């Protein structure tokens, strides 16, 4: 196993390791994180990985949205002396480039800008490597990268270049591949999309989610809360075929004749991979059998801008009105506008429990369910995630995107059983009233109400 240096983009730290692991699983190669906590802290921008081949490093760079670039790792140190002495010891890694390979050096920093004069000094300090090839800044055969990592100093005012050289760690290696998945964020930018809605998921997150599903050609992936289709486009771009459904057909259609989802998919050249989009309520779904999909990816509506709905009435009709309804349904009058069935709210914590049960029924063994769960930061407990699990389904990743008082968790659940389960019955749970004190109440229950109350803590509530 050789060691590689992953340089991460400054975003979504918690999602870094799950993404690496997903891509390694997708292409079926071995990825080992370092045992040294210094080298595998996902909160830091540089991570050292062990891989069996350089090709695997290239695959990571091509598919991981959070990777900026990946280097063959030569050495690191708290000082340049330390870095250089270790780099000398690794001569076998770079001596083949000495005779005639053209090269380039880049010296950059994280959380800091190194003045040009010192950049030059740093490059010169590597002169013991004795490269004979010519320096070529435009098209070198190989590029070396030297990275200084500084503590975060955001929020503090300081002079330009102040603290220069006071880095935590410095890393050095040879460039294998620049990340090419990151530019996809621009390509899938919602603002440039021909069809989107006010709850469309931003491009970076939907790409990360697509990676969690292990999307690739030949797979069939389902979104049961399709909305304007934001989850489907990246999944289809990675080669998978997409099936979508939503209780509200207007979300998928938009206002023009050609449905909006197909228009946006055409823009990305993936319309042939959107197999179908259907209007139905997932709690009353027409799927003929289970074990159909390789993955389920979804961003369920959690109620801040749009709440989840299911078929049914909040209040049942009384006998008289029910009779009128039946009368009207059996003898429709010409000129009546089309019947639109009534809907009622679908509580988020019920929805996620049902979603996991549905996924267990509809996924093939080994398939993944990838979705977002909003949560209240102060009230979240690890056990919240487990309130929604059922036998045969296991959480394999759970990463937080923190917005302060609330956040949302990207949850990846794997179907670990090949046993066949019946479809869920979606019966309305009567968990209101709180008579059952023994049961754990997850922080995402009544998320909408909590959101609009500004996430006041329980004590504050009581004090009023």
């Amino acid at each position, binding site marked *: 196993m050789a060691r590689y240096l992953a340089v991460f983009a400054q975003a979504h730290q918690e999602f870094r390791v799950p993404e690496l692991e997903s891509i390694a699983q997708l292409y079926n190669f071995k990825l080992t994180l370092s045992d040294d906590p210094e080298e595998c802290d996902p909160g830091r921008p540089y991570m050292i990985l062990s891989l069996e081949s350089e090709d695997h490093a290239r695959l990571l760079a091509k598919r991981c949205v959070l990777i900026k670039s990946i280097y063959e790792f030569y050495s690191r140190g708290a000082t340049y002396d330390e870095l250089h002495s270790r780099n000398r010891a690794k001569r076998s890694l770079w001596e083949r480039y000495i005779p005639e390979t053209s090269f380039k050096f880049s010296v950059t920093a994280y959380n800091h800008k190194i003045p040009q004069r010192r950049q030059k000094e740093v490059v010169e300090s590597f002169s013991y490597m004795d490269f004979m090839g010519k320096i070529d800044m435009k098209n070198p055969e190989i590029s070396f990268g030297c990275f200084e990592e500084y503590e975060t100093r955001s929020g503090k005012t300081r002079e330009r270049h102040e603290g220069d050289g006071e880095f935590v760690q410095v890393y050095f290696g040879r460039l294998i591949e620049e990340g090419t998945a990151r530019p996809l964020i621009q390509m899938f930018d919602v603002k440039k999309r021909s069809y989107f809605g006010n709850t469309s998921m931003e491009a970076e997150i939907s790409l990360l989610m697509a990676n969690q599903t292990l999307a690739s050609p030949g797979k069939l992936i389902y979104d049961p809360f399709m909305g304007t289709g934001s989850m489907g486009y990246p999944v289809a771009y990675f080669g998978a075929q997409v099936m979508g459904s939503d209780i509200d057909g207007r979300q998928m259609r938009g206002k023009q004749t050609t449905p909006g989802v197909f228009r946006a998919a055409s823009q990305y050249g993936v319309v042939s991979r959107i197999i179908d989009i259907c209007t*139905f309520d997932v709690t009353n*779904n*027409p799927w003929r059998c289970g074990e159909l999909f390789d993955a389920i990816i979804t961003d369920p509506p959690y109620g801040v801008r749009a709440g989840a709905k299911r078929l049914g*009435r909040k209040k049942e009709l009384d006998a008289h009105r029910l009779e009128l309804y039946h009368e009207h349904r059996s003898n429709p009058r010409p000129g009546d506008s089309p019947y639109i069935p009534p809907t009622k709210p679908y509580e988020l914590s019920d929805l996620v429990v049902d979603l996991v049960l549905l996924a267990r029924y509809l996924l093939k063994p080994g398939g993944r369910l990838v979705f977002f769960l909003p949560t209240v930061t102060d009230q979240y407990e690890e056990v919240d995630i487990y309130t929604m699990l059922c036998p045969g389904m296991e959480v394999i990743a759970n990463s937080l995107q923190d917005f302060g008082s609330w956040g949302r968790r990207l949850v990846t659940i794997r179907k670990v059983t090949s046993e066949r389960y019946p479809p869920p019955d979606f019966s309305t749970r009567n968990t209101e009233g709180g008579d059952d004190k023994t049961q754990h109440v997850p922080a995402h229950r009544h998320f909408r109400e909590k959101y609009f109350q500004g996430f006041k803590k329980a004590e504050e509530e009581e004090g009023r």
Partner: protein
Amino acid sequence: MVRLITHNLLACHVKGCTSNNFPLQLQNVQIELREADFNPDFLKTFLPKLEWKALVDSAKELGDTSLPLEQPEMLDDEFLKNLHHVLLEIHIEEGNMICPNCKHSYPISNGIPNMLLAEHEIG
């Protein structure tokens, strides 16, 4: 654009309608043919999920008789190409899908089927 792969996976789900509720009968349909990526591995793995007779019959109704009545043992290239065409390249743009049992009609408009149920049809 209801494709026949989707049609093969949808059954009537009206409350109490549990037998003879598949396949949904196609009525007044308008079809369009559009190319899709050919992926033999996908077809092979998906084959066991299909209700073969329903697929052959529906394809025939839409004028495609390229599929054999019985699923062949040997999956040669010609068979896979025909299966690919039937499953993924025939799109139903408009029309209705009718339950053979309860006669519920599911309309298709601009390629999107409306599978919603009325309030007396849900459990």
